[in-house]
């Protein structure tokens, strides 16, 4: 049984792509109100994990519970926000048009002009998505995940492609969200991001968790989070 304060609970999850196990008995628990970071090399299964939690792919075995319910439950509608790793937007749509459309799917959305201003998108509000810089596209994706005021947000490499200023601004926003009671589960390659933000870190390799704990617990023997990451993951490059 998931503990009452568990927002996401994954147990012995197996996902196969053909004969290859992308997730191979992965288990983790993200507590409500926490920011949980999932670290892992390319192909470790981080994106697949998020897709399982959002009911986008079929699992071979194992269980996934989100906000106390099985994934796919209609009662979860609107309670979850997702920032996918890929664009997550039509290429020909304007920033403000996309966010207004997404806001219209919710009963109590964030005010779009204020959200645009908060994410530094005012100058490109009427720019088509395909004409935005990589960092601006990431900011729009993040805005799309937050506009419905979700209680749980999945963020797949949220700051990839952002310049240092934008990264710091995003970190500030994520901290503010946590302070407001929003639970977050993010994947990242960036050790400094996990160190700066995460309440709990899970390091994943070959589709399973190899080590987990707070940053302090993981680095108590004197190493950095990066040395812990390197010693608990392989150099295998996968898709």
């Amino acid at each position, binding site marked *: 049984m998931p503990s009452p304060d568990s927002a996401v609970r994954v147990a012995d999850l197996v996902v196969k792509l053909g004969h290859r196990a992308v997730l191979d008995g992965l288990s983790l628990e993200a507590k409500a109100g926490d920011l949980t970071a999932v670290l892992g090399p390319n192909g470790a299964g981080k994106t697949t994990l998020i897709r399982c939690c959002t009911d986008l792919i079929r699992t071979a075995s194992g269980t996934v519970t989100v906000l106390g319910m099985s994934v796919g439950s209609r009662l979860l509608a*609107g309670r979850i926000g997702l920032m996918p790793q890929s664009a*997550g937007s039509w290429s020909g749509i304007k920033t403000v048009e996309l966010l207004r459309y997404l806001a219209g*799917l919710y009963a109590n959305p964030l005010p779009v002009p204020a959200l645009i201003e908060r994410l530094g998108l005012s100058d490109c509000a009427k720019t088509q998505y395909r004409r935005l810089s990589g960092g601006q596209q990431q900011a729009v994706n993040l805005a799309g995940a*937050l506009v419905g005021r979700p209680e749980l947000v999945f963020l797949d490499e949220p700051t990839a492609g952002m310049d240092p200023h934008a990264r710091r601004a995003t970190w500030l926003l994520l901290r503010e*969200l946590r302070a*407001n009671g*929003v639970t977050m589960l993010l994947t990242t390659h960036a050790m400094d991001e996990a160190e700066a933000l995460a309440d709990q870190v899970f390091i994943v390799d070959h589709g399973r968790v190899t080590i987990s704990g707070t940053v302090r617990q993981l680095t108590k023997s004197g190493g950095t989070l990066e040395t812990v990451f390197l010693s608990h993951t392989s150099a295998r490059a996968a898709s």
Partner: protein
Amino acid sequence: MTALDLSPRPAPAPAAKRIVRHGLIEARLLIRNSEQLLLALVIPLAILVAGRFADVAIANSSIASLDLLGPSVLALAVWSSAFTSIAITTAFERRHGVLERLATTPLGKPGLLTGKALAVIVIILGQLMILSCAALGLGWRPEFTVLSALLGVLIVILATATFVCLALLLAGRLRAESVLGLANLIYVILLVGGGLIIPVARYPAALQPVIEALPTAALGEGLRATAHGNLLGWPVLVLLAWLVAAGLAAWKGFRWTS
């Protein structure tokens, strides 16, 4: 800077509002896309005008070419929007993570598909109105009866649903670039050889049974017959069979992520 209240207040908008909103945004994006507009209107209009003024000999000697071209061009419009446009746009939506994002919003998978259907209906209604007006302006004089018009509407609905299922099957399995090439290729092949524009009777006798079994021929022949006030049953049966097969295949084979 305006302060944002970031505390969670999740609640979905009413289902009807979500679906209408999605249908309208998809329709707007489709209309804005010049390549889709070429398929949806420019090519059918060009065929209509060329057929009218060049008096293309695709008709029986007893029937003026516009009598056949009018309904044929309407069939082509349905084919281009419900199959080619939907296959290409959905494939890129899948590649760009649009489906991934929207499936986790209150719209959900059923709402997304319903909204997409609404967008197709809006586009096709617009196409049929514009092309019908153009054909009437060029001299097309259809002979619909009440019954044949109702049958024509049923055939258009069945064909639209069938083509959308086939488009989703293609878009949900292949890479976006492959879908772009393949959907356009299939569009051209069936435009010429699928009984859409050219009546089945004009093809070599050996090929006619094969062409009659195609959903494009069922749509083309069905609309040509109903436009002359005739009631043809076999197109409905062919389309129903295709709809069941394509619907099951799309349901089983569609992938939301790339």
